[in-house]
């Protein structure tokens, strides 16, 4: 059951790759990154259930979410201002 | 205290490397003093270690008290103690040299950080020498490589950062190949300790995993030691690095790489497999080494920049070392090990003397050396000694190792290697003579020569000492010979 769910989510994430490769704007790509990030968070939690010890996976998911968020912010800020500070 | 020397020899400089940049903020001389202190400490400790090894045999130090293969082991035997002494000694010499040379070539605000990186480079090399764990080797390899990239990029010429970057790219590829090799060996044996690997590998030599692992080690280390045809990073790196860095890297960097390669070949894989199963591997490398010896020398002849010439000459010298290693007999291996020692001394002397000339003048072209023989007699005398030693005139160190390499070749019945050694020496004669001729026997523009500033004693003295050692150990050759003899027998089991 978990495996199947993971598969579905991964495939749906895979589909977003189209926008990543094609673009056309930078925002499409950033959005793709964001979507893939959110989807994989779910995958990680589900993977925890596959290993029957979800407690070890929740914190990864949290770190993951944070990183993803920061990344998107960084990208956007760079695109917007051309620098990070 | 004494029993912790194997680790202290590395940890103390490591800690001092952290302090050096901070102390340098107070006064930049402090960071140099700390670097000198650290290298001196390592040198003295490694002498003690060598002494200990000679009287008590191999030292095995278990990091954190975990016995190998579970924990990391430090091994000091004849070979590693010997190489450690070479590296630390030359580090001391170059550090003394560095004081004025670095002030001259590098911005004041960078000097504290420079000495930190400089020390870390030495720490990385020492770690590579002492460790008995193959993954630990990789970590230290990366420390020395990373610092190496940065140090090369510190040169004054505008090409220096590019040289550093190219070195970084190819160096990282090499290191990653070594990591791949480690991975494949791990898959095949399940262990990372060199001695344990050596014990578990026999019997696995038909495994494609092990063959591949060796292939990747070979490529990776060939890159690291700049064995032809993977030498492309070396000439630029040595040429554009600051004088002190060129001297340090040329005399220790590739040597330690060669040492690690020797460790992998003899301690991990063991000589038997090359003699019985993979017989074509030594032949292959002998060909490569011969080609390196000749091509390196020929390319050196074509250079007009003296540092570049020395760099290409290093390429050919690496060929000598590998020739000795892959002869796979005690005498030949001894020749290879001797050449590690000898070439370190000679190249250090040469690069230091070139550094002395370049001090405040930036002279790097061979044609600009005209008339300098009497303006800078000591530096040029050191250069001449180094050059004669490279050519292999008797009573210099270069002769000793070539003698052993030739003996080793005949021992294997490979008489055709002797012409290669001889011709390569003749080629060296050609390119070194061009320089010496310019130095002593051509008159320079009197105005130019008069304008050349004096070189500080702190640069001249280490240069002279290292050059003098080329003669001392060429005459008292039995000292390195007896140590390498034991080391070679140890490696060949």
């Amino acid at each position: 059951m978990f495996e199947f769910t993971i598969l579905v989510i991964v495939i749906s994430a895979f589909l977003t790759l189209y926008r990543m490769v094609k673009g056309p704007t930078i925002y499409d790509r950033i959005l793709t990154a964001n979507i893939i990030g959110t989807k994989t968070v779910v995958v990680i939690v589900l993977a925890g259930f596959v290993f029957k010890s979800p407690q070890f996976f929740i914190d990864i998911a949290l770190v993951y979410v944070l990183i993803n968020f920061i990344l998107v912010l960084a990208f956007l800020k760079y695109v917007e201002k051309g620098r990070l500070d | 205290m004494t029993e912790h020397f194997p680790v202290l020899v590395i940890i103390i400089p490591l800690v001092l490397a952290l302090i050096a940049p901070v102390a340098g903020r107070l006064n930049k001389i402090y960071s140099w003093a700390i670097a000198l202190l650290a290298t001196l400490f390592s040198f003295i400790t490694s002498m003690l270690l060598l002494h200990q090894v000679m009287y008590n045999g191999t030292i095995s130090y278990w990091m954190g008290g975990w016995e190998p293969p579970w924990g990391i082991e430090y091994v000091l035997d004849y070979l590693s103690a010997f190489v450690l002494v070479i590296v630390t000694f030359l580090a001391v010499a170059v550090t003394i040299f560095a004081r004025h040379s670095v002030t001259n070539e590098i911005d004041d605000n960078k000097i504290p950080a420079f000495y930190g990186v400089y020390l870390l480079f030495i720490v990385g090399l020492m770690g590579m020498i002492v460790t008995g764990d193959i993954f630990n080797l990789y970590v230290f390899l990366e420390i020395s490589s990373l610092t190496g990239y940065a140090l090369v990029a510190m040169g004054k010429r505008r090409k220096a950062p590019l040289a550093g970057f190219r070195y970084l790219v190819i160096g990282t590829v090499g290191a990653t190949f070594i990591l791949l090799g480690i991975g494949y060996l791990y898959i095949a044996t399940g262990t990372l300790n060199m001695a344990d690997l050596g014990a578990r590998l026999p019997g696995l030599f038909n495994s494609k995993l092990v063959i591949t692992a060796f292939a990747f080690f070979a490529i990776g280390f060939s890159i690291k030691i700049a064995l032809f045809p993977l030498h492309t990073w070396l000439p630029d790196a040595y040429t554009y690095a600051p004088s002190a860095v060129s001297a340090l890297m040329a005399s220790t960097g590739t040597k330690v790489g060669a040492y690690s390669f020797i460790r992998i070949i003899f301690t991990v894989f063991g000589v038997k497999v090359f003699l019985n199963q993979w017989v074509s591997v030594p032949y292959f490398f002998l060909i490569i080494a011969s080609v390196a010896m000749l091509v390196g020398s020929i390319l050196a002849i074509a250079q007009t920049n003296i540092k570049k010439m020395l760099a290409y000459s290093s390429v050919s010298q690496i060929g000598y070392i590998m020739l000795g290693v892959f002869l796979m007999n005690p005498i030949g291996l001894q020749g290879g090990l001797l050449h590690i020692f000898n070439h370190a001394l000679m190249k250090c002397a040469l690069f230091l003397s070139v550094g002395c000339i370049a001090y405040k003048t930036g002279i790097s072209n061979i044609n600009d050396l005209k008339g300098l023989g009497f303006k800078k007699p000591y530096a040029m005398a050191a250069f001449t000694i180094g050059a004669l030693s490279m050519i292999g005139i008797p009573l210099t160190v270069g002769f000793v190792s070539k003698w052993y390499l030739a003996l080793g070749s005949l021992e294997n019945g490979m008489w055709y290697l002797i012409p290669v050694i001889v011709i390569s020496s003749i080629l060296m004669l050609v390119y070194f003579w061009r320089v010496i001729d310019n130095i002593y026997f051509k008159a320079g523009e009197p105005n130019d020569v008069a304008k050349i500033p004096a070189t500080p004693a702190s640069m001249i003295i280490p240069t002279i000492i290292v050059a003098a050692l080329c003669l001392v150990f060429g005459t008292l050759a039995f000292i390195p010979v007896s140590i390498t003899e034991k080391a070679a027998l140890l490696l060949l089991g």
Partner: protein
Amino acid sequence: MMEFILAKYNYWIYVIIMMIGFYAVISKSNLIKKIIGLSIFQTSVFLLFISIGKVDGGTVPIYQGTEAVYINPLPHVLILTAIVVGVSVTAVAFALVVNIYREFGTIEENAILEMIKHDD
């Protein structure tokens, strides 16, 4: 045959990724691209190591009783170190690229080589 291929699928994929990264490293002229290639190249090797550690039916290497089957933790340890090393290399490479850009105003290797052809 198919079974043989499937039994090691992680390994085949890692080889492919490694080749992509390596190709970028040696063929791209843009220095940043080279670094990107280097990153891909290195992570592919990490993938190999992590794949070595996999044990069928094993659980994450965190103590859950003596009977449990664990995934081999040693490669994980090695890779933790290697990742940090990889990023450090990248950082130094960046610093060099910035230096090169300051010097030459471009990060295309071919263009730079063209510029310095006449330096010695």
